[in-house]
């Protein structure tokens, strides 16, 4: 059997090899990769850096795939030489491999500008999984990061680092961000979006040196100015790796020259991917490389016939909440007609360029939903003269299936992997595909950048006989986004009002599901500095009491740790008499409940009590139940009462995804039932156990151990870390017992008590910020948010019955 050696274990090389293997077993295959990883999806490295995907989830070909196809895989081995006469390649480790057919898929490397200081500790490229992991190691709250280069990669790196807590500055040589994809107007929209995210952008700056003693300290510019830096990412462009091609004696311009059959100047050496130049163009984005791989596989296996004639270059920025799409020609020149739409308030900029009535290119910023329709026009060259008036504003669609129904079978759905509508329909009909995961598995559509996910779903919905929506839960019909996605959108778009969220992303109306959830989310995200909208709150949170089945309310004052005084008890008794309270009840939370209070009486009841709200009605902190501990109990090992009171003080008045009940006990006899609370402190000789995720309600669940510590302060600190982590990552109405099971206690430990100090500080500082803004809601009894908050309307005209 002929021997095929593939140099390069990346996306283009392996895509080509997959197509070669699909023709049958025609070669003994050896693959060399200089990275130590199996083939992974390089496109998603920015998602890994941004924490949206774990690094092990981006593998494209797992080890079993190589084994199944009997591929000799040589990871971590760089090929340094080719002898085209002897038909051998030489590895850096001294190994030699002979070939009958050689495939060079060597890709490209980060281009390093000729400046001093690139060898300093803290200078990184952003090309590989190892680069990404190194960046994740270094990034953290307060780290000053400078990204050199404001192209696609640089901006995605900047966003990723910023999500990791860094203060990020992007330094760009040109006056326009992504100037190869955007005109100056589009660039300025993008700049303001990056600004809004909190990423500083410096344009027109030429970097002259990176300075520091051993490690990076600052970045110096040609104009003499500088910025401080702990971390520098160089993303100034890429250069094709052509050295092996040169040694193999291939024709080379900017990269290895190939023809339409993907042949090089030698019959036994082929090349694919970022290291080739086709019709004068080097491609750096994935979609064209996949097309090349398909054609080359045919040529390489003696099935010469298919041709690659070049691709339309399209680029999409993968930053959640910052939508940028660009393709084709869009520069303002005489032969192009420009159609433009701008809304600076919403940050939307759309520009289509037409030549002789046909689409030649586009720029979309802020709203890229229509990119598939435009890309189709671009690929087909359809004459658009008749629909000239509707280019940017298509008529409303009467049903969801219509848009996909109108697409031609040859139209591309997944631009990255070149999957057409016909292929998808085929998979649905012939292979019984019913879900998005099955479709991904079967066709690979939507597995790369993911921008066609919605389109794939629409197709499934319209065609698949038994389409099943994926398990991913969206908020509700008003707002079809998953909660984690919404949190990210609201954070990046800096939205502070519920109605704004509904107007921008939803149906403009909202319902009883999404409104309270959004109210919580905004309060949490902005640490209380949001635009509070009481109409979006449940009645309990509008009048700060718990509605009962007859429309009256229950009043529970705060009684920290279940400890009260004769004075307080007297006041409670007086109030119960004065307002004819129907029932006075001791609750299971060591507090006293006054049941049957009229809404209009609430302000006066609160004033008479003179105690703060126990917030027994809120999706928020309820109380800390305690036992008497060392103060009185002969078995006590810790002062659980004092610890509980302090714990309640630290957490009270804060909102949470669902109610949070806590307890502290002075010994493992557990009299205050800490093991079935959301957070519990269990005293033992010489320390505390901190347990989380317990429940004794609709579910009964024993809490998991978060950590064991020595001092009360450490126990409270661990509780604070878990508490804020739950606030930030829990879905609305998800109790801690579901939250802990969903994430797993290991992950929670890793991201709270075992997380680096910087992450602790970040969580705690957000908690403190929220706490500083929190206040006793019963103060509104004296200063209502509006005149009729608690009382019925008083009619102007008198009506006698």
């Amino acid at each position, binding site marked *: 059997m002929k021997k095929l050696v593939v140099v390069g274990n990346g996306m283009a090389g392996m895509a080509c090899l997959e197509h070669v293997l699909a023709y049958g077993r025609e070669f003994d295959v050896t693959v060399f990769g200089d990275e130590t990883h199996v083939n992974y999806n390089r496109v998603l490295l920015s998602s890994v850096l941004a924490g949206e995907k774990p690094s092990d989830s981006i593998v494209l070909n797992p080890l079993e795939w190589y084994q199944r196809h009997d591929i000799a895989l040589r990871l971590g081995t760089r090929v340094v030489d080719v002898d085209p006469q002897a038909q051998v390649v030489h590895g850096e480790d001294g190994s030699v491999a002979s070939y009958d057919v050689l495939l060079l898929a060597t890709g490209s490397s980060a281009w390093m500008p000729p400046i001093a200081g690139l060898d300093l500790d803290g200078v990184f490229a952003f090309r590989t999984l190892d680069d990404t992991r190194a960046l994740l190691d270094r990034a953290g709250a307060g780290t000053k990061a400078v990204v050199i280069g404001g192209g696609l990669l640089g901006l995605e790196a900047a966003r990723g680092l910023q999500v990791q807590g860094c203060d990020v500055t992007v330094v760009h040589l040109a006056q326009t961000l992504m100037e190869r994809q955007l005109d100056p107007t589009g660039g300025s929209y993008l700049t303001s979006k990056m600004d809004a995210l909190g990423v500083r952008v410096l344009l027109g700056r030429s970097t002259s040196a990176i300075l520091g003693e051993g490690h990076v300290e600052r970045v110096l510019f040609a104009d003499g100015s500088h910025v401080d830096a702990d971390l520098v990412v160089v993303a100034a462009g890429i250069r094709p790796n052509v050295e092996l091609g040169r040694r193999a004696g291939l024709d080379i311009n900017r990269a290895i020259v190939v023809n339409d059959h993907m042949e090089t100047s030698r019959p036994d050496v082929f090349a694919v991917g970022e290291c080739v130049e086709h019709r004068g163009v080097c491609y750096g984005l994935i979609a064209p490389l996949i097309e090349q791989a398909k054609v080359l596989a045919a040529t390489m296996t003696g099935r010469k016939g298919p041709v690659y004639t070049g691709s339309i270059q399209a680029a999409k920025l993968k930053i959640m909440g910052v939508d940028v799409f660009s393709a084709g020609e869009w520069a303002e020149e005489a032969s192009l007609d420009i159609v433009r739409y701008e809304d600076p308030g919403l940050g939307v900029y759309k520009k289509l360029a037409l030549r002789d009535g046909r689409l030649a290119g586009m720029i979309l910023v802020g709203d890229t939903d229509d990119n598939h329709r435009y890309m189709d026009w671009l690929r087909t060259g359809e004459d658009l003269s008749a629909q000239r008036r509707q280019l940017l504003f298509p008529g409303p669609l009467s049903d969801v299936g219509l848009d996909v129904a109108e697409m031609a079978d040859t139209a591309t759905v997944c631009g990255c992997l070149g999957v057409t509508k016909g292929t998808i329909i085929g998979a649905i009909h012939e292979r019984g595909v019913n879900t998005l995961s099955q479709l991904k598995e079967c066709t690979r559509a939507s597995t790369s950048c993911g921008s066609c996910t919605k389109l794939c779903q629409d197709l499934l919905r319209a065609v698949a006989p038994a389409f099943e929506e994926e398990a991913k839960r969206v908020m509700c019909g008003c707002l079809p986004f998953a909660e984690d996605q919404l949190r990210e959108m609201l954070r990046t778009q800096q939205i502070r009002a519920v109605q704004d969220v509904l107007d921008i992303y939803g149906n403009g109306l909202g*319902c*009883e599901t999404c409104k309270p959830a959004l109210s919580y989310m905004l309060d949490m995200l902005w640490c209380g500095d949001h635009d509070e909208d009481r109409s979006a709150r449940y009645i309990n949170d509008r009048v700060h009491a718990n509605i009962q089945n*007859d429309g009256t309310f229950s009043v529970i004052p705060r009684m920290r740790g279940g400890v009260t005084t004769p004075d307080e008890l007297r006041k409670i008794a007086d109030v119960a008499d004065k307002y004819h309270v129907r029932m006075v009840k001791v609750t299971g939370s060591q507090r006293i409940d006054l049941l049957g209070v009229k809404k209009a009486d609430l302000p006066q009841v609160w004033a008479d009590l003179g105690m703060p709200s126990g917030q027994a009605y809120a999706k928020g902190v309820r109380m800390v139940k305690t036992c008497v501990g060392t103060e009185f109990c002969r078995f006590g090992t810790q002062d659980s009462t004092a610890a509980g009171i302090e714990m309640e003080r630290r957490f009270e008045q804060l909102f949470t995804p669902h109610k949070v009940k806590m307890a502290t006990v002075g010994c493992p006899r557990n009299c205050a039932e800490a093991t079935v609370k959301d957070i519990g402190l269990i005293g033992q000789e010489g320390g505390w156990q901190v347990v989380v995720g317990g429940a004794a309600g609709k579910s009964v669940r024993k809490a998991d151990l978060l950590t064991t510590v020595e001092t009360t302060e450490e126990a409270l600190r661990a509780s604070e870390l878990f508490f804020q982590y739950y606030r930030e990552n829990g879905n609305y109405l998800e109790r801690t017992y579901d939250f802990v099971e969903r994430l797993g206690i290991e992950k929670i430990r890793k991201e709270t008590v075992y997380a680096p100090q910087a992450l602790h500080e970040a969580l705690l500082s957000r908690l403190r910020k929220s706490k500083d803004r929190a206040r006793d809601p019963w103060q509104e009894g004296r200063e209502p948010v509006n005149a009729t908050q608690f009382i019925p*309307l008083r009619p102007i005209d008198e*009506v006698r*019955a």
Partner: protein
Amino acid sequence: MIENQWIRVSPTSHIPPREGRVVHLAEHEIAIFHLGDRFLAVQNRCPHKGGPLSDGIVAGDSIVCPLHAWKVHLESGQIQRPGGQVQCVERYPVRVQHGVIEVQLAVIAAEVTCGGAAA
């Protein structure tokens, strides 16, 4: 006839947008809602268990009862959730004159459609 009179209730500013308030007029307990662009009024009693509709959450032009989340369409008075309900809530005519909400105590006759499927 008192039924034909427009009764002045309250300045519009006393009901914040997307909230409801109750007003007691003779034997009527009426929930008035501010829907952003208009005001609508219905009886302040959910047909289910008598929950105070004025304390509900406004969802478009419907109100969701605070007790058990029944959903009432304010324009028609029909129960939208749960499905298959035949009863309706009573509706009252409302208008705004010179910044003041006015209602009539004449209950609007239930539409023929009321009692059918939810809108």
